[in-house]
């Protein structure tokens, strides 16, 4: 081995597949209540919320942990049971 093997990983989109399949509760944003503060975007541990003109949840990757709903200061995110 000429060089040291370093245990680092560069981020790639969806490298472990569609983790949205793991979800049992689905966060749904009520855009009438949403103030676009983007706290949900900041707290999402999976980077599954996009910061566009409003927060947009990527349901292919959202695991349904509910942190966004918990952090939302105006309670604009509801956790709805998946079918």
């Amino acid at each position: 081995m000429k060089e040291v093997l370093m245990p680092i990983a560069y981020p790639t989109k969806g490298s472990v597949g569609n983790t949205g399949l793991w979800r049992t509760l689905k966060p749904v944003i009520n855009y009438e209540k949403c103030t676009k503060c983007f706290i949900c975007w900041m707290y999402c541990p999976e980077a599954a919320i996009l910061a566009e003109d409003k927060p947009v949840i990527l349901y292919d990757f959202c695991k349904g942990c509910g942190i966004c709903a918990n952090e939302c200061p105006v309670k604009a995110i509801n956790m709805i049971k998946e079918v």
Partner: protein
Amino acid sequence: MPVMPLSGNHAAAYAAKLSRVEVVAAYPITPQTQIVEKLAEFIEKGELKAKFIRVESEHSAMAACIGAAAVGARAFTATSSQGLLYMSEMLWWAAGARLPIVMGIVTRALAPPWSIWSDHIDVLSQRDTGWIIAFAENAQEVLDLIIQGFKISENDRVLLPLIVAWDAFDVSHTIEPVDVPNQNVVDEFLPKRRKYRHTLDVENPFSYGNLAYPKDYMEFRYSIYDSMLRAKDVIEQCAAEYDRLTGRYSGGLIENYLCDDADIVAIAMGSISGDLKVVVDKLRKQGVKVGFCRIRYFRPFPSEALAKCIEDAKTILVFDRDISFGSEGALCLEVRATVNREGLDKRVYGIIYGIGGREVRQKDLENIIVKAYKEELNHPRKLLWLNLKHV
């Protein structure tokens, strides 16, 4: 180069200062505390430009050093005994992430029963973490090995964290004259820490330590093994360069003290070495052909250098300040493995001494060597416990 009266612990603090460490994260524990107290003092006085991170535990101390090293800072910490065991999980993370960090360890026994005195079992329990492990004989060597330690650890063919260990009180609190090199000499030996391919960069984000499946994991372990072997050359090169700049050879894998024509060779690590050398000198004058081989680096284990050192000896006495319950001393096991691997024909005796700070006198060492010389020792199967009561 000024000679200063320094304890082993203060010599360590001066070494870290001369190495221009940028981050110190530590939690106090006897007999280590003086090292980081002194470093905190240097930082307060403005003599050392570094960040001192006060943490809530040793586990966090190492985590902070890992973070610092990952972003490119030169990091230092120190601990002992129970603190080291509490830190242990993070030692694996530091080595596995291939981060250069230097840590001072003042060796101390483990509880229960509670003990603050020297014993090498704390360091040796971390044998397989992937850290390079050096044992210093005295305060001077504490200073020299820490400065060399950064250069070895930061070498891009090595990239492994490094422990310098020294005995509680015998070295840590004993004041000796220490030759402290000038800053410009150390700067020439140890330039500013460089960035590596795995130094974190916000412009090019990546993460450490992700899941590795069975098809990938083994190569990371092989890489650590491989780098450990390469470290042997780097250790010798650093000792030679340090010698060239400071005029003092104070490093290298082993110390060969009159082994070349010896029939009996004693092997040990740490502060007992001074006593063993005095005893060797005394017995040599009486015509006993005895030598002493000091293991300065326990990891990587210097098998080749040791084999050469004991080539002509018939009897080997291994002094261990540790016991692996159910077997024998950790150093003795290494020596037996070396003797076996190199196909040497020796009688190897294991001796357990100084556990939990038990006193050892030169007379005790002399008696054992003389017994070996007269072939009066029991079968090597019978492990000798020096100065053990009630047996």
